[in-house]
């Protein structure tokens, strides 16, 4: 079947150099057999009209004065053949990807209800600028998803979004036929989000096709005129608010106070950030409050700034009308701080039971959530009398997927990766010794250990020295006390060939899940909460020799047991993975597919929304 014809509309107003670069790169990387280029000259007073007239492959539409962004683009849309799709392309965009138009066209026609397709936009310095947009009804300040993250090929899939910036927008003819062009209630700004929301009301989805990346210089026509920008922006924002405030508010179906931790490098905090983001997208209006601080087991105050727009807005909601339902997401000894009328405690632990104080406080809740059946059984066995629901966590498959760009070992060695906080639970000593003994220095195998130690009583270097690792044994490289931005962690996993999690017990094991989502085969202890998402079809379960007393500094483990991972089996699995590359790679591929199909944060948020629905 012949592909649908597309008209690429490039709006120009002076700044010929930008337009020239845009058109040159467009021509060099676009198959124009089923497309035409329409340049709309919006009353330029520089050399633009003369230069455009020299390009026989460009159809020029001339506006004799500057009609602004909206009316200028509408002139281009009106000039397009009425059976063609329309691609709006800013003149400060450069195209450097062959097949970009075909890929966008395929995404647009992948389903009848897809109406608008955007792409990843990057800055000339390589940072990601855009992977979709959202507007919160609290502020009506449009935000670009992924803005200014180092580009590691995150957001590579095609996914639904609320809006896109129209620096590049592939719009299907059916949408224009139904809702017309850009709304002329706007002169500039917000017209793109307005268009996407109108399309949604007309039954069309907006998606970002992550397989296409264009360069956006962000030299908007008002970028050097701050007063003009401010006037236009605020005028459009007011118009947008008037049109959409009630409808955007109405997308929230549930209200909840979420008492937890956000701005510390802890597992609860990192997962909390993702839960809140996903819940907002799922129609749960979350108001965040810090649950720790003075008078709690973690008496440190939390910084106000989450360095994330959405999370800051959710934090600013506290103090408003208090929702009936409150969730404390943290250790069980802060459940008593729950301020809701319907009180939920959401927690996890790495051993086979829960401390008496946690159980006491949990029995003061209306219900308890845990991420795994492992923890549900441990809680019930410790005396929990209240209803307990298994509410699994998830993984961010936009930042953790197999196409994330890693930094491969230039020597071609097979790379095992282990990442943990130094301590009794993670069995670092066993992993290092077994690896060192299993391989020889001449082997093309290396273990990378990412270690965090914030306990000043622990001297990691001395403990490693004390292991007496052999100079002729397997080679090990360390990343010591290095913290990486969350959005780059996928690149760490993709720099390895197999992930190792050989600890004694897990409350969930987020790094393992992230590595699996990145397509790595993994070796994981066959005991603990992560058994919720790990099985031998997608991982190598590490056998245990039994359960042993959980002797550790953490007071919560006292009196409970955890696993004793089998070092001989670990040695066997190390060798097996290296000797069976293809089998291991297959497990990694299946792991990534399963994480994306069953274990995303969207899945987690849907379960939360469903539970809130049942609570009423």
């Amino acid at each position, binding site marked *: 079947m012949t592909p649908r014809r597309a008209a690429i509309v490039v709006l120009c107003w002076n700044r010929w150099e930008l337009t020239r670069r845009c058109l040159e790169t467009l021509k060099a990387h676009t198959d124009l057999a089923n497309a035409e280029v329409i340049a709309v000259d919006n009353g330029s007073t520089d050399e633009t009209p003369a230069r455009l007239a020299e390009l026989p492959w460009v159809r020029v539409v001339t506006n004799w004065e500057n009609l602004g962004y909206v009316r200028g683009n509408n002139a281009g849309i009106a000039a397009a053949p009425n059976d063609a799709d329309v691609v709006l392309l800013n003149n400060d965009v450069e195209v450097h990807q062959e097949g970009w138009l075909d890929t966008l066209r395929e995404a647009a026609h992948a389903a009848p209800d897809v109406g608008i397709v955007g792409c990843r936009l990057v800055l000339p310095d390589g940072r990601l600028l855009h992977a979709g947009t959202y507007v919160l009804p609290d502020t009506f300040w449009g935000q670009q998803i992924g803005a200014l993250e180092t580009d590691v090929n995150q957001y590579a899939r095609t996914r639904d979004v609320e809006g896109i910036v129209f620096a590049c927008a592939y719009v299907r003819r059916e949408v224009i036929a139904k809702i017309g062009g850009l709304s002329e209630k706007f002169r500039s700004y917000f017209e793109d989000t307005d268009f996407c929301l109108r399309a949604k009301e007309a039954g069309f989805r907006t998606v970002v096709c992550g397989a296409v990346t264009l360069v956006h210089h962000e030299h908007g026509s008002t970028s050097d005129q701050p007063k003009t920008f401010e006037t236009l922006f605020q005028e459009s924002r007011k118009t947008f608010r008037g049109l959409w405030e009630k409808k955007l508010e109405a997308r929230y179906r549930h209200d909840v106070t979420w008492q937890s931790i956000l701005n510390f490098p802890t597992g609860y905090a990192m997962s909390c950030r993702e839960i809140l983001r996903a819940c907002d997208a799922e129609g749960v209006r979350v108001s965040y409050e810090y649950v720790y601080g003075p008078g709690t087991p973690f008496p440190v105050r939390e910084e106000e700034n989450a360095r994330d727009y959405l999370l800051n807005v959710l934090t600013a909601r506290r103090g408003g009308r208090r929702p009936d339902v409150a969730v404390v997401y943290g250790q069980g000894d802060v459940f008593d701080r729950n301020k809701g009328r319907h009180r939920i405690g959401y927690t996890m632990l790495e051993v086979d039971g829960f401390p008496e104080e946690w159980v006491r406080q949990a029995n003061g809740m209306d219900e308890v959530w845990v991420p795994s059946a492992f923890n549900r059984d441990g809680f019930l066995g410790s005396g929990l009398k209240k209803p307990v629901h298994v509410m699994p966590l998830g993984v961010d498959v936009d930042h953790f997927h197999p196409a994330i760009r890693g930094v491969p070992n230039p*020597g071609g060695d097979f790379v095992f990766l282990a990442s943990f906080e130094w301590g009794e639970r993670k069995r670092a000593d066993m992993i290092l010794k077994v690896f060192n003994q299993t391989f020889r*220095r001449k082997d093309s195998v290396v273990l990378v250990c990412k270690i965090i130690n914030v306990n000043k009583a622990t001297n990691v270097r001395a403990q490693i020295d004390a292991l007496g690792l052999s100079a002729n044994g397997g080679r090990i490289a360390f990343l010591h*006390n290095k913290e990486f*931005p969350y959005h780059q962690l996928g690149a760490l996993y993709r720099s390895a060939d197999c992930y190792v999690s050989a600890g004694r017990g897990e409350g969930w094991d987020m790094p393992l899940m992230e590595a699996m989502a990145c397509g790595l085969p993994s070796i994981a202890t066959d005991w603990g909460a992560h058994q919720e998402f790990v099985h031998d079809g997608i991982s190598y379960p590490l056998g245990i020799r039994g359960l042993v007393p959980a002797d550790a500094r953490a007071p919560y483990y006292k009196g409970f047991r955890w696993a004793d991972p089998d070092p001989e089996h670990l040695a066997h699995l190390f060798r097996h993975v290296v000797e069976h590359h293809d089998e291991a790679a297959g497990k990694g591929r299946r792991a990534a597919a399963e994480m994306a199909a069953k274990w995303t944060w969207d899945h987690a948020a849907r379960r939360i929304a469903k539970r809130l629905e049942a609570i009423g």
Partner: protein
Amino acid sequence: MTETVSDDAELDRLRKEAAELRDLVRALSAALVRATAALPLDAALALARSESAEGAAPFRLTEWHEGIEVTRGDVASEMALLWKRLPPRENA
């Protein structure tokens, strides 16, 4: 020699000085990573070898500054540096 300080003003001054030193260490660490990452592989290996008193070890702890300070870094530059510092296989 350890000096115990109890005066609030002095304590405040020392806290500020400590914070400045921490910032300096972070900046130096980041500069070192950038500088070494830019070296060609041979030069980086030579640098690592000449500094190392642990040439025979299966791992290198020469850049290991024991402490509880966590420094932020970029995965690309840190991994590039790590691969350059990897003990060579051929010296077995």
